[in-house]
């Protein structure tokens, strides 16, 4: 065991004893003794215990709104003089409190439970003064509540368990805020309010999550900017350098007049807190949650004197233009009237003028489209309304000027925007289609590709569900099996033929010898000798499974020997063949005698143990 391992083992053995001796205490403090109505006071509760404690904020007599809460835990190991170690866990809870009323407010006792132990903090008090009053007075020394549960903290009481009261509480919790900034707090109905949601922090923010915007009741909202990544700007507030992180920027358009409230936003943050501990210089990451204060916005109704056709959704500053897809058209040929309003405001809600009913022209239901192009902090874009018009009478067609009334909140006055008059020359009747059919009005979808002959019609079916798929699956396999079977049958038949020839070789030879015997008395001896030789050579060929006619005597003898014919049989065969040659060319041997010699040779050969193709003997 190495020296380091021995040290570790000793430390592990000592830990249970240290845990038993650990004390539990509760301390509560406020960061200030006086606070303005629009400011926050931070309540910190520190609990030293072996188990994680739970806190229950009072519900009765608690005149504060909890706008933020955070918690942290630290562990310290103190080496005592008697050779023992003391391990302490300290849980710190911070609550950002916003007072609800003026006067001396009390913070009732807060119940704390840590495992089996129960306790509570002593009551605290804070003086609340009117909003706007300077309240930089720090907490008085006595405002820190003494330890509870009756367990003294021992040496260093009054400081944090680390012996360094400034490490756990730098004041960054108080200055870390979620804030909503609006460019205006008093607007006209439908006028844009730009709201920017920021995190202001004296420490670095590592991560944000669980962002909960309010319902924006009474507003039409449009996104202006949502940064993909957190990026910080530097700001100074009350002489303090802060990091500002933009969470989102939205355009709000009030939909009703009167006082409106932009509710609280909420978010969870992971912040990097620096460390003063020389033995732990890497800092710490803490999770905190923040809630913004509501913002009040006063919405004024639109001023009196609006023109008769004014629609309350038309608020902003814009231009209006009208155009036609063509200045000339044939009778019945569709035209598109395009009306474009472009500018700043709630573009998607704008209600553009409707094309009036005119004699000699048929107007179809208009379609609208929006193109949004925010300009910095202002929501802007264009709304286009297209109306298909079909001239139904030849001659000049006049599209009258269209009027659109808009309320401009910058000037606080109504503006009337007008398009110019448009003129279209409508030519006479369109050409009639061949075949005398009536003219077709291409009113909708003018670019539609034409109909075509229906072509050969088929009954729809499901090719995969009927017999074709099964047929396709089975037929090739069946054909393959059939062809293979035929091949095998043929091979077997051929093999059977060879074996059969081996089996019946003797019979065939004897039949030929019988034929030769019928030629005994013939005038010509040549057919007789040829038949005898054919009987002998043919027998050998059948037994060998290959033609034997072209072989020399030696080759034939060798082949027969390899096939299992014994020497007496070979000698008998050679004698018979020699006799045959002698009889054919010399005439020294009688035909009857040759026939007997050949018969004996056959008999001897048939006694041979043939090892021939087909296995027959």
């Amino acid at each position, binding site marked *: 065991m190495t020296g380091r391992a021995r040290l570790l083992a000793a430390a592990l053995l000592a830990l249970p004893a240290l845990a038993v001796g650990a004390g539990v205490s509760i301390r509560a403090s406020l960061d200030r003794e006086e606070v303005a109505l629009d400011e926050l006071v931070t309540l910190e509760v520190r609990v030293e215990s072996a188990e994680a404690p739970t806190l229950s904020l009072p519900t009765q007599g608690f005149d504060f709104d909890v706008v933020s809460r955070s918690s942290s835990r630290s562990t310290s190991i103190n080496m005592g003089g008697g050779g023992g170690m003391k391990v302490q866990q300290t849980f710190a809870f911070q609550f950002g409190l916003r007072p609800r009323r003026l006067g001396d407010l009390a913070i009732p006792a807060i119940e704390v439970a840590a495992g089996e132990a129960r306790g509570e903090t002593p009551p605290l008090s804070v003086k609340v003064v009117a909003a706007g009053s300077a309240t930089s007075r720090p907490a008085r020394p006595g405002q820190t509540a003494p330890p509870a549960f009756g367990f003294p903290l021992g040496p260093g009481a009054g400081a944090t368990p680390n012996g360094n009261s400034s490490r756990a509480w730098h004041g960054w919790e108080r200055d870390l805020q979620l804030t909503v900034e609006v460019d205006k707090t008093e607007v006209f109905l439908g006028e844009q309010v730009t709201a920017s949601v920021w995190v202001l922090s004296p420490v670095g923010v590592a991560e944000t999550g669980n962002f909960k915007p309010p319902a924006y009741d009474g507003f039409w909202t449009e996104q202006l900017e949502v940064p993909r990544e957190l990026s910080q700007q530097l700001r100074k507030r009350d002489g303090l350098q802060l990091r500002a992180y933009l969470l989102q920027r939205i355009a709000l358009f009030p939909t009703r007049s009167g006082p409106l409230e932009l509710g609280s936003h909420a978010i969870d943050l992971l912040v990097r807190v620096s460390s003063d501990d020389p033995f732990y210089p890497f800092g710490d990451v803490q999770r905190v949650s923040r809630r913004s204060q509501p913002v009040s916005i006063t919405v004024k109704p639109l001023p009196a004197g609006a023109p008769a056709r004014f629609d309350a959704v038309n608020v902003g500053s814009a231009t209006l233009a009208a155009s036609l897809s063509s200045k000339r058209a044939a009778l019945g040929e569709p035209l598109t009237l395009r009306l474009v309003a472009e500018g700043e405001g709630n573009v998607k809600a704008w209600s553009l003028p409707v094309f009036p009913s005119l004699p000699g022209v048929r107007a179809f239901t208009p379609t609208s489209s929006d193109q949004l192009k925010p300009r910095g902090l202002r929501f802007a874009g264009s709304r286009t309304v297209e109306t298909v018009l079909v001239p139904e009478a030849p001659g000049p067609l006049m599209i009258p000027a269209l009027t659109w009334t808009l309320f401009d909140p910058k000037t606080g006055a109504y503006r009337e925007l007008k398009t110019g008059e448009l003129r279209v020359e409508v030519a006479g009747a369109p050409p009639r289609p061949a075949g005398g059919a009536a003219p077709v009005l291409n009113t*909708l979808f003018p670019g539609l590709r034409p*109909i075509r002959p229906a072509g050969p019609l088929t009954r729809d079916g499901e090719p995969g569900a009927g017999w074709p*798929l099964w047929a396709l699956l089975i037929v090739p396999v069946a054909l393959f099996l059939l062809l293979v079977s035929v091949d095998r049958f043929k091979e077997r038949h051929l093999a059977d033929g060879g074996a059969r020839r081996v089996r019946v070789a003797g019979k065939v030879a004897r039949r030929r010898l019988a034929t030769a015997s019928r030629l005994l008395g013939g005038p010509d001896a040549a057919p007789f000798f040829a038949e005898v030789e054919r009987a002998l050579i043919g027998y050998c060929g059948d037994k060998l499974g290959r033609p034997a006619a072209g072989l020399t005597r030696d080759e034939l003898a060798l082949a027969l020997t390899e096939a299992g014919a014994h020497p007496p049989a070979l000698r008998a065969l050679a004698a018979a063949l020699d006799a045959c040659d002698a009889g054919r060319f010399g005439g020294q041997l009688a035909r009857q005698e040759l026939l007997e010699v050949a018969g004996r040779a056959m008999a001897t050969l048939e006694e041979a143990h043939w090892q021939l193709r087909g296995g027959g003997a």
Partner: protein
Amino acid sequence: MTGLLLLWLAAAAPAPPADPGQRAEQAGTLYLAGDYDGAARGWRSLVDEGWESVGLHLDLGNALLRLGFRGRAIASYQRALALDPGDADVQANLEQARAQNVDRLVGEAQPPLHERALARTTERAALALFGLAWSAFWLLLWLRRRSSRGARRWLGPAALLAALLAVAGGALLAGKAADRRTPTAVVIAPASPVREGPSRTLKPAFELHEGTTVRVLEAQGDVARVRLLNGLEGWVASADLEVI
């Protein structure tokens, strides 16, 4: 509007000629004369009887589009494309009809290769590919069995290639079969609320509008569970859909 359309479609045409080709031609004459109602009714009756061709579905789609039934027109064009995915006229008209779709799907992903191949292949083509490759595979196996050693060297890989093509054809056929189980449909109502469950008492989560294509996953009574091309799912009224 849907109910009126159904009533209108249900009205019997007066003594149509028996020959479907002649009836299609008559509907075409009505169309050219500007009688889109009559034309659509004529072509629709043929489709309802089970007749089909690319031209028939294209013509019916044009008539429905001109009548303002954009969702039904899109469904008809998609039927035509199912028969011939490469038909340029149908593709162009379908694109025009879809250009007015209200719904813009966010997060619509490019379909994977096999789904694109499936969309561009008709069922008949898949069947033909499978049949030819399957037959060729067994034929090549038989030839290889009979051939000399030299020929076997190329007959083996050829049989393997045919087997792979047969597998591809089989996969396409299986995909088409899966398509039949979860068919494509088009929203034909101007707006159709989408709920998170089959109950109509649930608050609609969002709305679909005419012309949007969905896939029908299941049906329960008069509602169907659908999936959009971007993966969103919900329940809509079956009457608001036309299955292709």
